[in-house]
């Protein structure tokens, strides 16, 4: 296999890891107000992603870094072209990350309410924007002969891209709901299963439409297969969640995400960023680094990735237990009023 093709696959793999993992913590963040009735519920919900969200987000950083290293032209055109969208995304991720770490530091309802807003918004906005961005990548953007983006921010918000955004919002909501169902008990679990049964059918309509559009308009026919697998996974995930088989349901939604990434990258290949004028498209060949760099990167990836997968898997094993309301009773942070010293 060509090294450039291999790196196209590796980058697809990194995005898959990112969406499967951070997908559920975006979902938990978005669903926070829906699934919780009181502070204890909220702490249960956030406690399920607490130990892992930061490690999940690193998949994004590695995907970005790998794109920079393996396809510098892709990285450069994409990041400068999607400038304002990425600015919004960064603000959302910054607020969300800070909120997840800081909300429990002060025991004050107003403090927590503000951070909850950041968690919900900071999860919803990236969930939406990733769909929009990937739809635009698949659809192609206006590039000039130097591969510079010549469109506008608003040109990124076309119907196809917006449908992509709706798809990822619902997808991560479902994936997050199934994850929460898997990690909680009692009322939170009941509520979240109800959410899954609502999000699932909606997602089948929106996501089914989006994938069909992507395959028929932009892709080779074989991508119908992963698109079909994705639809099956989503349907299965919803049904299994409704029957209380959350473990299998989570596996199903995770498989659906894998299949969706395969579909999108399948429609993209061999381009990495198609241009409205095909002559200006960035491809795995004209966007790539030298074979020497790709070879070194391959060796590093082959050596390190299995280790990363092993210890991240171990983390999920350590925190495999369901969280109950009794688990989150203790330390809620410092008292609201400052100057209260524990002497």
């Amino acid at each position, binding site marked *: 296999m060509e090294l450039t093709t291999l790196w196209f696959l590796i980058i697809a793999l990194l995005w898959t890891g990112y969406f499967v993992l951070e997908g559920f913590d975006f979902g938990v963040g978005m669903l926070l107000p829906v699934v919780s009735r009181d502070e204890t519920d909220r*702490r249960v919900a*956030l*406690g399920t992603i*607490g*130990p*892992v*969200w930061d*490690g999940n987000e*690193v998949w994004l*950083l*590695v995907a*970005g*870094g*790998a794109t*920079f*290293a*393996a*396809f*510098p*032209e892709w*990285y*450069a*055109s994409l*990041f*400068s072209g999607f*400038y*304002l969208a990425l*600015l919004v995304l960064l*603000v959302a991720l*910054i607020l969300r*990350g*800070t909120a997840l*770490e*800081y*909300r*429990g*530091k*002060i025991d004050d309802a107003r403090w927590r309410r503000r951070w909850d807003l950041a968690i919900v918004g900071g999860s919803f906005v990236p969930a939406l924007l990733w769909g929009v961005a990937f739809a635009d990548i698949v659809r192609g953007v206006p590039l000039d002969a*130097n591969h510079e983006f*010549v469109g506008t921010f608003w040109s990124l918000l076309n119907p196809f891209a917006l449908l992509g955004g709706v798809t990822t919002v619902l997808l991560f909501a479902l994936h997050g709901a199934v994850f929460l169902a898997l990690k909680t008990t009692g009322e939170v679990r009941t509520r979240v299963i109800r959410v899954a049964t609502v999000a699932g059918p909606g997602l089948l309509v929106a996501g089914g439409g989006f994938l069909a559009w992507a395959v028929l308009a932009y892709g080779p026919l074989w991508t119908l297969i992963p698109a079909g697998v994705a639809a099956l996974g989503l349907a299965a995930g919803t049904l299994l969640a409704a029957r209380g088989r959350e473990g299998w349901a989570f596996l199903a939604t995770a498989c659906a995400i894998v299949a969706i990434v395969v579909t999108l990258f399948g429609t993209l290949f061999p381009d990495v960023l198609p241009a409205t004028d095909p002559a200006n498209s960035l491809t795995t060949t004209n966007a790539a680094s030298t074979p*020497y*760099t790709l070879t*070194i*990167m391959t060796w*590093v990836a082959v050596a390190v*990735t299995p280790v*990363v997968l092993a*210890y991240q898997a171990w*983390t999920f094993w*350590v*925190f495999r237990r369901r969280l109950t309301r009794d688990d*989150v*009773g*203790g*330390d809620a942070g*410092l008292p609201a009023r400052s*100057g209260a*010293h*524990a*002497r």
Partner: protein
Amino acid sequence: MNLDLARWQFAVTTVYHFLFVPLTIGLSFLVAGMQTAWVRTRDDRYLRMTRFWGKLFLINFAIGVVTGIVQEFQFGMNWSDYSRFVGDVFGAPLAIEGLLAFFLESTFLGLWIFGWDRLPKRVHLACIWLAAIGTMLSAYFILAANSWMQHPVGSVVNDATGRAELKDFGAVLTNSTAVGAFAHTITACFVTAGVFVLAISAWHLRKGTHTEVFRPSIRVALVTLLIGSLGVVVTGDMQARLMTQQQPMKMAAAEALYDTVRPASFSLFTVGSLDGRQEVWSLRVPGVLSFMATGSFDGQVEGIRDVQAASAQTYGPGDYTPNIPTTYWAFRFMIGFGLLAGLLSVVGLWLTRRRATRPIPRWFLSASVVALFLPFAANTMGWIFTEMGRQPWLVSGMLRTANGVSPSVSATSVWISLVVFTLLYGALAVVEFGLMVRYVKAGPPPPAGVEPIAAPEPTPSVTY
């Protein structure tokens, strides 16, 4: 216009990010050390130290993480032509940093925060060590990438593709500039963490609160600070000599030295203009610049005019001189703030040399609290010096800063992002500082066996 805005944005976001990073690196090792002491001795004071400093570490770490994402994105966003030019070389260490270091630190930190009663003690201890090692690995790879920009090795510019291409990755990783920068940065991280622990311990000791925790803490801080400061001096000296060979213009700019001289004196400060025309007055120490640059008190140091002429010869006509007042003062403030911090450790260790019961003079404690800003200011000045001193180059001798900026991004867009980041970062600083102050004031958790309601080991998931 775009160029200036993009440079301001990089300066604002990077200086800000680097306020948090050195503390993260230094403090992660100190907390790991404290927890090791607890696991070994089972002395409850070490557990309380771990808890207290660990909490402050996490408050700081959070902002370092979220502002770090911007760092990776903005090369492509604001510097797309730079990214196209350097990606083949610069991208690899950046990607490896993520794969090797970011995964390690964030995954094991998550395990550490939530694993207190879920993991065996030694496994839990290993988590904080692995996270600390992750922070250090991260520093190495990002500094290797930056050092390549200062002193590009292991690569050539391919005229056909119009970009720098990697020829020897080993050379990039073992770049003498990278080794020097890493050693200098890591020792500065320990200075930062040392002063941080020192200042906060001093604050409590001044008030006489929790002395059983802060007396040992202040010793840890002073020893760390002393070792870190010595390391900073030694590695800084090493770096100065490398810089003289590899970036003579930067060394000349550090002194605002216009004419090549032998021996060269070092000016502590200058009154008047630094444009080479007139100098009202300066306080000079003979031979010191020669020593910094060459290791000998009568070595020759090249002046700005000679280096400028040589550069014009090599690269064609143009201005190859950085902004001299900036480099001149940044260099002095970096050294000055750093030395003051180091001095504090010597005095402090002398004052605390006897048994732990001997009271520490209040003036020293007050000075230590005030000194908190020193390492942060020195770190900032150091980066401003090294990045401004490389100008007009973005990659020394290969790519000018003016040629690295994104051509497709409008000035309006950069204005928007500059304003948004500045406001957001400002707000985050207020929140972070406020939280830090509250946690400092609250002090460590009570000793084991006291106040059983607020047990020193809360349930893990509670942190959220």
